[in-house]
């Protein structure tokens, strides 16, 4: 099925973006990426602890897998931190793509949307292609677009919670309000059915991490999500029927045996 999604300069045949954190081993991570068929993986920048060379080994693994990288600013709590992290990421990963996170609250990891808009504007002005991790708030979405974002990444539920869609109405409203903006659901999904649901709503793609990496079998779960996303997308394009309150027979009544002849 030729149905690519365009995220900035990338035309992607897979609508799954996969995080690379919290897998049981590097080998399972690599296998999960392959099983998912994803073309974009998220990565981060961290301090190297105690003279270790974990960074180089990880970067080598990602380059071998061949997926395009989307660096994040995970853990940043101010626009200033996020901007500096994005600038470092552009140099290290040689990409102007950035998944912009500015975290405002510890328990829910809810974005600080004020810092997010501020950082998005500064980075877009510097030529970054900003993928902002945001809430489902319409006004914030509008301001992110005004700041120069051309993709939005609303949460479904708090990061790593696996709750699925917390507010289906809000996600439907966002989709309806921005019909031409690529929308990627980022964070909070736990099961393949959650991903199918948002794809049926018309979302363009899904970004996952914990739901795959913390599954009992991450490789099989990566494949399950890929199938669910493909099914959900096909279901959206096929235009589902309108639900009814009452039954309607699917088998024609005309010619029913034993029917009384009028």
């Amino acid at each position, binding site marked *: 099925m030729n149905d690519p999604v365009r995220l900035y300069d990338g035309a992607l045949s897979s609508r799954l973006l996969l995080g*690379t*954190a919290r897998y049981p081993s590097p080998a399972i991570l690599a296998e999960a990426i392959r099983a998912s068929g994803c073309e974009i993986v998220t990565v981060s920048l*961290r*301090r190297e602890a105690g003279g270790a060379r974990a*960074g180089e080994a990880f970067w080598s693994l990602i380059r071998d897998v061949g997926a395009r990288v989307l660096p994040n600013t995970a853990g940043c709590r101010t626009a*200033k931190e996020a901007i*500096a992290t994005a600038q470092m990421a552009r140099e290290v990963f040689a990409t102007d793509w950035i998944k912009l996170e500015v975290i405002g609250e510890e328990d829910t990891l809810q974005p600080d949307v004020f810092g997010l808009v501020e950082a998005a504007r500064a980075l877009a002005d510097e030529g970054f292609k900003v993928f902002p991790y945001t809430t489902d708030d319409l006004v914030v979405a509008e301001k992110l677009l005004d700041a120069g974002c051309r993709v939005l990444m609303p949460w479904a539920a708090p990061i790593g919670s696996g709750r699925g869609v917390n507010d289906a109405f809000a996600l439907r409203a966002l989709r309806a309000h921005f019909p031409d903006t690529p929308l990627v659901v980022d964070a909070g999904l736990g099961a393949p059915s959650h991903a199918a649901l948002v794809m049926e709503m018309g979302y363009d793609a899904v970004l996952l991490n914990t739901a795959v990496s913390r599954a009992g079998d991450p490789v099989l779960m990566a494949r399950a999500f890929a199938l669910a996303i493909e099914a959900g997308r096909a279901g959206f394009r096929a235009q589902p029927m309108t639900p009814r309150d009452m039954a309607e027979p699917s088998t024609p009544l005309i010619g029913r045996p034993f029917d009384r002849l009028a």
Partner: protein
Amino acid sequence: MSATTLQLLLDELGYDEKTVGTALNQEFVRARDRAETRLREGDAVEIVTPRQGG
């Protein structure tokens, strides 16, 4: 640490300069500016490398 510039600090710590990003006092420092970036008492240096992320 006795290094007087950011580049000398990276050398002292043994980093492969191609796979690290650097910042000084929360401001990004480009790789090509490290040799001219002088370090002073109390400076906050960040040296980061690629890592797993969501």
